[in-house]
């Protein structure tokens, strides 16, 4: 299969970017949700 490695590299790069970006967004979101929950508990406790 001609150009097999080029295609594979392109697709791997694309999927890696999707995956890494989605993971970072997910992680940042989870961290913010945590912080929000913590602050909310403190507010309702006081």
């Amino acid at each position, binding site marked *: 299969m001609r150009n097999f490695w080029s295609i594979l590299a392109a697709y791997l790069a694309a999927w890696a970017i999707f995956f890494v*970006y989605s993971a970072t967004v997910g992680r940042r979101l989870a961290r913010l949700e945590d912080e929000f929950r913590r602050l909310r508990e403190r507010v309702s406790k006081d």
Partner: protein
Amino acid sequence: MGPAGDGQRQQIDGTVQEMEMTTKSKQRVWGLAWVATAILLALAGYAIFFVAPRELTMGNIQRIFYVHVATAWCGFIAFFISFFGCIGYLASRQMEWDWLAVATAEVGLMFTTVVLITGPVWAKPVWGVWWVWDARLTTAFILEMLYIAYLLLRKMVTEPGRRAMISAVFGIFAFLDVPLCYFSIRWWRTLHPAPVIGGGPGSGINPVMWHVFLFGLAGFLALTVILVRDRYRMEALRQKISELAADLEEREESLESKEVTR
């Protein structure tokens, strides 16, 4: 704490419970959406390699087309929405528009990065070079630079209202610049193939390829939607967190002052 404080607390407790319920069910729906998108993209990957026919002149390398063009469309749609977010913010001064603008700008930037990486890999075997400075490639490059600058600008301004306004003005300038850039280079001969889809007479695409392309596009669009939603939610949460923090600080201050008077 006085009666006014109690009333406020009840109100906060009420909204907290309400929010708890809606976030739970919403989270389930968006979790499903993530799973569905992942499956859709996996199926699209299968279709691209095993269903779509080989292109006659370019051979297998043409299979990059499905991801290259579809992500380019998604990126451009995202930037277009971002442009409207900027206009919406300036017209209404509602932070929601700013959140939409930044969410779509970041997701659009991610897609443009994919376009700029898959493009040269495709170009090398077909054109013999990784990169040429023709109209489309240069415009894509400038587009990437503009939205990196947009995100950098946002990082450098801390006050949310001011940041929203400044970045909205920049976003409008940036988006207006894209067609200018394209037309200023179109005077040179352009190497990039003309659009295959809807590019006027003579352009066309095999129906199987077309369906595979649409299938992939659906997957990328779904990814765009959920990523934008998550990124938007991040901005919303940031605002809520800063409100809560300000609230807490205020209470602590009032408690301290009470102790001092006692």
